[in-house]
C-alpha cells in the first residue's frame, strides 16, 4: 500500500508526517503527491494575505472557528511565516492567534517557513495543500507571509483570495498601485474599531470604483458610490469590502457569505475550472523551472561555474554571457 492511500483527515499524525516529506522534497513526498493527486481538487482553497500586523492570523482563527460552529465543513490551515535569509531559521508564530481552534478534531493547522521563496508562499505550499485536500478537508485556508505589495503568488494557488487591510496602512495612492489589491476577490478591513477606518474603507472603495466603474452600482457616476457590495447587471465579480473585528465576531457572517458567493460565482461562470487549469499550469511551470535548474546544476561542475564567475567578478564578462556559456549544450 502506498503511503498516500493512508491519507485521511482522521489520521492527523500520518498527514503531518507526509507533509514533512513533501516540505523536505523527499522521494517519499513526491510519491505521496503523485498518489493522492487524483483524489485532490475537491476543497475550496481560500488565500488570506495582507501586510504584517493587519490581523491575518486572528482573522483566520475567527473565520475557521465560525465555519466550524456551523459544523458542516472541516478546515485545514496552512500558515506561512518567513525564513531568515541568513540562517534559514524561522519563528512560526501564527498558532499563537489560533488557540480557539485547539481541541477541534475537524481542524488541522500547519505552520510553514517560506524557505527562501519570495512570493509569499513556500515552494512546497501547493503540495501541502494538495495533501490536505486529498485527506478530505473541505476548506483550506492559506495564510501568506506578511505581504508587501507584490507577494501575489497566493492568487494563483487559491480559488478565493482575501486581502486584509487595516486602518492607517496607507492613503488612496497606495490603493491605486498595482499589486496586492488587484488580486483581491474579497477585501477585508480588519480592526474596524480603530480610528481611520472610514478613510481606509473610502480609499478601497474609490479604488474599486476606478476599476469597475461601469459595474459598481451600475453607473459610472463621477465621485459617487454607495455603501453596498452588489454586483449589478454584470457577469464580473466586484470584490466586496467587508469591515471586520477579528477579536470579536463583527463582520464575519458577511465574510463567510462573501466566500460562499464567490465560490458560487466561480462555479456558475465556469471560472472555477478555468482557475484550476491556470493553477495547475502554474504549478507545472514552477516545478519545471525548479527541476530544470536542479538538473542543470547536477550536470555542471562547480569548478566550471567558479571559473566563469571569476570572469564576471573581475568584470571581464557580464552575468548574462556567463549564463549563456554555462547553459550551452555540451558538444
Amino acid at each position: 500500500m502506498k503511503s498516500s492511500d493512508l491519507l485521511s483527515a482522521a489520521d492527523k499524525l500520518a498527514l503531518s508526517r507526509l507533509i514533512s516529506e513533501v516540505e523536505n522534497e523527499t522521494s517519499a513526498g513526491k510519491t505521496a503527491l503523485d498518489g493522492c493527486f487524483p483524489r485532490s481538487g475537491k476543497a475550496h482553497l481560500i488565500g488570506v494575505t495582507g501586510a504584517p500586523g493587519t490581523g491575518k492570523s486572528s482573522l483566520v482563527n475567527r473565520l475557521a472557528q465560525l465555519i466550524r460552529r456551523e459544523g458542516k465543513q472541516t478546515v485545514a490551515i496552512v500558515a506561512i511565516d518567513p525564513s531568515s535569509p541568513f540562517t534559514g531559521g524561522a519563528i512560526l508564530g501564527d498558532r499563537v492567534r489560533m488557540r480557539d481552534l485547539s481541541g477541534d478534531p475537524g481542524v488541522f493547522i500547519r505552520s510553514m517557513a517560506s524557505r527562501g521563496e519570495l512570493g509569499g508562499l513556500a515552494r512546497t505550499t501547493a503540495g501541502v495543500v494538495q495533501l490536505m485536500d486529498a485527506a478530505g478537508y473541505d476548506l483550506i485556508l492559506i495564510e501568506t507571509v506578511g505581504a508587501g505589495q507584490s507577494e501575489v503568488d497566493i492568487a494563483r494557488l487559491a480559488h478565493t483570495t482575501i486581502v486584509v487591510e487595516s486602518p492607517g496602512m496607507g492613503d488612496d495612492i497606495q490603493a491605486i498601485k498595482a499589486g496586492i489589491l488587484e488580486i483581491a476577490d474579497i477585501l477585508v478591513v480588519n480592526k474596524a474599531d480603530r480610528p481611520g477606518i472610514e478613510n481606509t474603507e473610502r480609499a478601497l472603495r474609490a479604488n474599486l470604483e476606478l476599476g469597475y466603474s461601469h459595474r459598481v452600482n451600475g453607473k459610472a457616476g463621477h465621485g459617487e458610490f454607495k455603501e453596498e457590495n452588489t454586483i449589478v447587471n454584470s457577469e464580473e465579480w466586484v470584490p466586496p469590502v467587508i469591515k471586520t473585528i477579528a477579536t470579536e465576531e463583527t463582520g464575519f457572517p458577511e465574510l463567510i457569505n462573501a466566500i460562499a458567493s464567490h465560490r458560487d460565482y466561480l462555479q456558475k461562470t465556469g471560472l472555477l475550472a478555468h482557475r484550476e487549469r491556470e493553477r495547475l499550469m502554474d504549478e507545472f511551470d514552477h516545478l519545471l523551472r525548479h527541476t530544470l535548474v536542479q538538473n542543470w546544476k547536477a550536470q555542471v561542475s562547480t569548478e566550471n561555474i567558479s571559473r566563469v564567475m571569476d570572469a564576471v567578478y573581475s568584470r571581464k564578462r557580464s552575468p548574462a554571457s556567463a549564463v549563456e556559456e554555462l547553459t550551452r549544450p555540451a558538444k
Partner: protein
Amino acid sequence: MADRKIRVLIAKPGLDGHDRGAKVIARALRDAGMEVIYTGLRQTPEMIAEAAVQENVDVIGMSILSGAHLVLVPKVIDTVRKTGLTDVGFFVGGIIPEEDVAVLKAAGVNAVYGPGTSTVTVIEDVKSFAHIA
C-alpha cells in the same frame, strides 16, 4: 532535495505568564537555522500534543516558571506519546530545583536548563535530540 530543517515546538504549559525565556530560546534556535513553532502562553498538555502532531516536530521545549513542572512535564510527555509521536526529544527550561532534575529526566526529559545556561549549549543539545528522532 532540500535540507531537512529541525522543527522545534516551544511551549509554555501552565499558568505563569513569563515568556521572556521562551522567546530567548526560540530566537536562539531560529538563529541556529531551525524552524521554531511558538505557541504562546497557557498551553494545556493536550494543546501542546495537538500542536506537536500537526507540526510534526522533532523536539519540544517547555518553559515553566510556576513551580508546577513535576505535574505538567510528565503529563505533557505522556499526552504527546499517546498520540503516536514517540520519537520526539524534550527539554525543559525555567526555575527547576536541583532535586527535581532527576525526576524530570526519569519522566523522559533529555535536558533541563536553569537560568544562565548558554544558548550555545541549548542549540547543540537540541541538534542532538533531533537526531534521536
